[in-house]
């Protein structure tokens, strides 16, 4: 449990750091930091239910995309501003490093496995984001039809 809490807090601080690097509006900073923890929480929930790499990342990507779209509307700011920094803790930096380490030490079977895992992580996040965006776009179009009907 302590490990999870440390991860959630450090994910939030990492997100805050990257929000500063990307020069985000300070007004949005608290919501972006929450997004960083939320994405990791999505990953942990996915890992708890399904295990593996792809599905947890898919859930995390989806959670973040949905959160970013909702916050963008609430705070009238681009969804990108919420999404980009919050997605940083999900970037598979650690598997990428261990993959490089395995190549440098000529452990090619291990390297191939880790490389595959890195690719699955990236694909999972991208897939989750895509589902989130499609739903947001669908919702936007439904809203437009609703407005037209009211007129």
């Amino acid at each position, binding site marked *: 449990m302590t490990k999870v809490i440390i991860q959630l807090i450090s994910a939030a601080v*990492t997100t805050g750091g990257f929000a500063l690097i990307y020069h985000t509006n300070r007004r949005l900073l608290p919501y972006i930091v929450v997004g960083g923890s939320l994405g990791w929480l999505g990953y942990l929930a996915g890992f708890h239910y399904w295990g593996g790499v792809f599905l947890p990342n898919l859930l995390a990507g989806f959670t973040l995309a949905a959160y970013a779209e909702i916050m963008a509307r609430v705070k009238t700011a681009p969804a*990108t501003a919420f999404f980009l920094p919050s997605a940083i803790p999900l970037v598979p930096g650690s598997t990428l490093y261990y993959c490089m380490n395995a190549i440098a030490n000529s452990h090619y079977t291990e390297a191939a496995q880790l490389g595959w895992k890195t690719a699955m992580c990236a694909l999972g996040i991208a897939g989750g*984001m895509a589902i989130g965006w499609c739903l947001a776009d669908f919702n936007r179009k439904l809203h437009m039809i609703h407005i037209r009907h009211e007129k």
Partner: protein
Amino acid sequence: MQEKEISRFLRVLIRMGGALKNCGAEVYRVEDTLNRIAKAYGAQEANVLVITSSIVVTLTMPENEPLTQTLRLRKGGSTDLLLLEQLNALSRKICAAPPSVQEFERRLDEVLHNRPDPRLFLLGSILGAGASTVFFGGTLADAALAGCIAVLICLMQQKLAGFFMNQIEFQFVASFIGGAAVFLMCELLPMLHADKVIIGDIMLLIPGMMLTNSISDILLGDVISGSIRLIEAVMLAASLALGIMAAIILMQGVIF
């Protein structure tokens, strides 16, 4: 509008597009924004094409011949989400009540004038690298070293980047120097974990945001721009990996 004024408007419009693209907007957003502004100024037709390295706008104003201007985007700017937000706000205001072209240009210059504070970038790098070291299982001492190496990486990004042929070469050198520095420090201070520190610092160099944007471009239908950026991101990740591997191999030869 006279032809001279249309030309000036086109110039301002295309500069706005370039600024949007450089601060990290998706292709779809840039094209949509330029189209909306052109329509707000009464354009009969506006054809905007944005790809990663150039912008082409052809504008047809009532009772005038179509005019075309292009802008070559030589290098991608650094992501600036505040600028992106301000440019969006400017475009919304301008579409609601289009001012004169001079006024549009003045307001655009005003927004572009605000440059981010480099100290915030440095602080963000230290926080980002330190916290991700802890996130991936490092201790607080590891995080402190990751923060110091983040300062080194930041200095290289600000002072050295211009000397290299391209971003890929810079990425290789920066990750090699960063990696070698971490291994040396960890050799001097054995209680530190070199792998965790490097993972924390790698996060600063990984083209994660470029990858995300390229995928979103492809999903939104801008396959050309998305593919160019995707290839660029993969090349950057590969050169980062090679740089770190070179550091590992060198240090194995020197130290172990």
